[in-house]
């Protein structure tokens, strides 16, 4: 506890929320994509009757089950984080965002949890048709869940359709404008594509690992090919979606874009694009900046000479921290363009018929396997730190959102969360990696009886 002795309750509560939500987002980012992948695999198996798809389904389903369990338990923690540390926020914004979260539970969580059992264990009991439906319902549930929670988050970033009552609470006036608030469609698209890309690169990485280990089965080459098609199709879409999301942010949250760009100063005659540098918040400048003149104005305003305001136009107490946002945005971009390069590279090798031969491509794919998670986290850090110092943008400050809890309680629970999450989810990640380390082989799980024995044998 001495570690956190110098922090106040607000800082500790912010660290705790950032920590628990960052851990949590990793699992949905994976399960949204994987649930859709499993539905596609199962559909292809039923349609084409090609055993390879069934084997792939059974292989990824076990990994999905471990990831999903981690997503469920870290999600339960999240549903209580609002009340424990941010109770004033809950009371004030609850009338608007609470019902959206209730809809998430009722339309998504129950759907996923209700059909998960049948999807994982019920194929023989319900027959192929109902099993396919259950699998599709789980995939649909993950997407519905993303829709509601991103609507909530977007409302906090770009609030709309509300009024403020005499108690200072946000009161819903127009639910349509609340749900479809200005940043929601962009954020949702960007996040769902991110989840699909993250999964595609995990699948590609696992396949590439087995190709490098010379486990060149039909299953391995099939999943490598599928993942790389996904990368080819989705990466360009994601770059367009990200660009549109950025323009939307410029319109509604200009401070955030100023921090992302590192624009401390206004540029009346066209702003440069700072490729890299070291933001110096004390001196309000970017040190060692490598920049391209006028490119930022060209990207953001589609005119190289368009004027762009900088943080000098914003009062100091309304500015987000610049350095974190500046760096995390660049991490996300670098990964995005690395993914695009690999996608194009794979396309070239596919055309040349060398998709399964290019070991350099395989090594790069293994390297990029976890990159989607890093990009997702970096993107969320950009958008969440970038909207500080507010919880409800422009209206409710983070410092006014806190519970009446004392610092030692928050510090104790924070330490407990850190220890437990690293231990539990570390173990889970280890088990997932071990499952991924085994090649998908013909005949595994023909019937579900001897599996436990085979796992025992493999582990022994």
């Amino acid at each position: 506890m001495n570690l956190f002795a110098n922090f106040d309750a607000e800082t500790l509560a912010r660290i705790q929320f950032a920590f628990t939500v960052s851990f949590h987002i990793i699992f949905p980012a994976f399960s949204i994509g994987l649930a859709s992948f499993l539905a596609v695999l199962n559909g292809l198996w039923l349609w084409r009757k090609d055993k390879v798809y069934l084997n792939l389904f059974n292989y990824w389903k076990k990994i999905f089950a471990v990831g999903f369990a981690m997503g469920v338990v870290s999600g339960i923690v999240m549903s209580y984080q609002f009340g424990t540390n941010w109770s004033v926020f809950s009371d004030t914004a609850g009338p608007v965002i609470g019902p959206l979260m209730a809809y998430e539970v009722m339309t998504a969580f129950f759907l996923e949890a209700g059909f998960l059992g049948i999807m994982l264990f019920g194929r023989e009991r319900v027959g192929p048709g109902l099993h396919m439906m259950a699998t599709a319902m789980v995939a649909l549930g993950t997407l519905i869940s993303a829709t509601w929670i991103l609507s909530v988050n977007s409302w906090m970033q770009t609030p709309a359709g509300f009024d403020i009552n005499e108690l200072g609470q946000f009161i819903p006036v127009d639910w349509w404008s609340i749900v479809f608030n200005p940043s929601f469609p962009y954020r949702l698209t960007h996040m769902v594509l991110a989840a699909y890309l993250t999964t595609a690169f995990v699948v590609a990485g696992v396949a590439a690992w087995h190709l490098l280990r010379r486990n060149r089965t039909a299953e391995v080459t099939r999943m490598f090919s599928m993942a790389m098609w996904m990368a080819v199709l989705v990466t360009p879409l994601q770059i367009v979606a990200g660009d549109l999301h950025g323009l939307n942010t410029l319109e509604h949250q200009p401070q955030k874009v100023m921090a992302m760009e590192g624009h401390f100063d206004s540029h009346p005659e066209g702003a440069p694009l700072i490729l890299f540098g070291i933001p110096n918040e004390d001196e309000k400048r970017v040190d060692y900046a490598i920049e391209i003149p006028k490119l930022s104005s060209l990207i953001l305003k589609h005119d190289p000479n368009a004027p762009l305001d900088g943080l000098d136009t914003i009062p100091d107490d309304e500015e987000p921290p610049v350095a974190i946002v500046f760096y995390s945005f660049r991490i996300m971009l670098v990964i995005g363009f690395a993914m695009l390069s690999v996608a194009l590279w794979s396309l070239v090798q596919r055309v040349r018929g060398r998709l399964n031969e290019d070991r350099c491509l395989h090594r790069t794919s293994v390297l990029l396997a976890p990159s989607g998670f890093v990009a997702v986290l970096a993107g969320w850090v950009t958008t969440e730190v970038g909207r500080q110092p507010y919880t409800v943008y422009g209206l409710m400050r983070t410092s006014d959102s806190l519970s009446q809890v004392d610092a030692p309680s928050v510090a104790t629970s924070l330490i407990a969360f850190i220890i437990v999450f690293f231990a539990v989810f570390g173990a889970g990640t280890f088990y997932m990696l071990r499952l991924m380390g085994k090649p998908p082989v013909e005949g595994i799980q023909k019937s579900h009886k001897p599996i436990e024995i085979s796992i025992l044998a493999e582990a022994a």
Partner: protein
Amino acid sequence: MLELSTIWAGIIAFAVLTYVILDGFDLGIGILFPFAKTDKDRDVMMNSVTPVWDGNETWLVMGGGGLFAVFPLAYSVVMPAIYLPVIVMLLALVFRGVAFEYRWRTVRARWFWDVAFHGGSTLAAFCQGIALGALVQGIPVEDRLYAGGQWDWLTPFSILTGVALVIGYALLGATWLNMKTKGELQRQMRSFARPLMLMTLALIGLVSLLTPFQDPIYLIRWFSWPGVVFSVLVPAIVAVVAWILDRSLREKRDYQPFFCAIALFVVCFIGIGISFYPYMLPPSLTIAEAAAPDSSLAFALVGAVVLLPAILAYTAYTYWVFRGKIDPEESYH
């Protein structure tokens, strides 16, 4: 005309009761886990809930999320009031939740996840009981904020309700396993059910006797007209249910003991409802005071009316798909 807030209080109460029953028996299995004689028995115990535990736990999110949605004031006052029990419960649920998957993924560390499953289940149940006790004791509110201390929840009474819930969940777990298993494991669980029932009854009695002294409003509620009717009725129903439960155990029935144990929980839950109404958090907040504006309640109610019956239907379907005794030779993993 019924107030929207009253309807919603009923829905939240229903969600919490559903949670208590459904997760009650699967936490109960965790509580009974170390008493299993063989590893095989533990496999069977866990497999009896593997396909449904996710859904069971979702009702806890519904309770918390629903409270946040329609009673944001109650949610924002309760959570800081029972801060530590809630945090400990969440962490305990993390451990026991992942154990469902992890214990099948390792041989060397299986014992660890078995301990985690048992410890997590027991601790989660205990914390839920403590939270209940803290609510019954009363939560002071001033200016829409929790006005008590960090440790107010910790009293002999809340410890007692904590223990009571652990034992009660174990009873649900034992009768569930009596229904879902066969052979030696079923015999063992049936033999546990009777002492667990007696302990549960004793604890229900003790908690009921102490409750009126936690706050004068309970005393008035239970010992003045028309509350006094319930003071006779509720214990009478408990006695009848207990008698049927005891007989069904002696007759070695499969299904009846489990549903009797559920009935015990339902009756106790109604008793708590009688104590609380019209308060959400006695003695500080009534249901109407804690509620969000009607526009929030109405918007969420439209969804609840359509979706909750659908949820109940497909949840029932899942239980139907995995009905019957667990085949010890069949593994899900």
